[in-house]
């Protein structure tokens, strides 16, 4: 029960953090006379940039999967027939006969992937900034909020290690 509660809270928090992160990326682009490279050394801006790229990649992945699944179905059903799904092939939102089923929510799948992967990318980006001695936190609310969102993604990714699905 606690596990279900934690997963539900995580899903809601992820759905909240995604648009917030894109908004913070737009706000972080403003930096006065500072150069683009200086702005890109703020950990909040880096977290927003990396998280937004992962978000678009996850959405693109979910958008491409149904198209790819059609080809997988054509290839797999030729060999294994209608039992292809039970062989473990990723058929996307289609059943083994190639018909669309509403068993999968691409939105929830993208959010799940986001909470698993964004923290790893942001953690690597922050580690690179620290190693390169380029960690330049900015005392503005935009950068602080970016850092909080980045920390949330890292905690979310760590949670998947300790409490797998």
């Amino acid at each position, binding site marked *: 029960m606690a596990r279900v509660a934690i997963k539900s809270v995580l899903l809601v928090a992820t759905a909240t953090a995604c648009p917030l992160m894109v908004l913070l990326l737009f706000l972080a682009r403003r930096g006065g006379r500072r150069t*683009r*490279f200086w702005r890109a050394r703020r950990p909040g801006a880096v977290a927003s940039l990396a998280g937004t790229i992962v978000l678009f990649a996850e959405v693109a992945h979910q958008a491409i999967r149904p198209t790819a699944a059609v080809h997988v179905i054509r290839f797999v059903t030729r060999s294994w027939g209608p039992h292809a799904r039970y062989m473990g092939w*990723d058929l996307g939102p289609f059943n083994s006969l190639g018909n669309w089923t509403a068993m999968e929510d691409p939105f929830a799948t993208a959010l799940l992937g986001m909470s698993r992967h964004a923290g*790893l990318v942001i953690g690597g*980006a922050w580690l*690179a900034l620290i190693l*390169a*001695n380029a960690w330049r936190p900015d005392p503005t609310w935009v950068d602080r909020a970016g850092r909080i969102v980045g920390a949330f993604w890292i905690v979310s990714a760590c949670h998947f290690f300790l409490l797998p699905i």
Partner: protein
Amino acid sequence: MKLIHFRPQRRFTTVDALTLVPAIALGVAWLVEARSVLHYLERFDRLVLRQLLHPLAAFLTPLTLALLALRLRWPWPSLRSCLRQAGAVACSVAAVCVILEVFNHFLDLTTRLYDSVQLHNSAASYMLPTGRLPGLTLFDSIAFSLGEAPGLAVAGAYLALWSAGLWRTESSWIDRVGRLVGWFWIILALAFIVLPPWSPY
């Protein structure tokens, strides 16, 4: 007066060879050991393909650690510029992730061993099948616990270096190989994501 800074060229020495050969041999040993996965290829599916990715990650791991150790040997430019080189950063970030995954693997193994011992000491132990303890099979080993984490972290590190204008490269074999290993980690992570271990429906 124009100052010319002498920077020694990084050559491939005997010490480099003596470090890299065991690292590559260890990775190849993992690959050879994992050939038992091929036994399942008669049932060629997504999960078998995914199982083939784990030995590749295990192959890259000793190579990454060896390259990082060699990068920290003389001659190196300076610690700051060394840690801005893409190859060194890729190896450092991947090494941190591998260490975290190894720690997590042993934490998980300890929990499962504790549960197994508790179960065998319980009154219901006569119902248990005789089997190996967890962690003693190939699929339970550390080689099969490495996933997409190092590759995603390397992708994040490359993104941070590029966006902050800190991407530095060196025309030496060690930086080239380091960058190549970083890209391999990233490709491996994408393959892990495209072939998930579970079906989401």
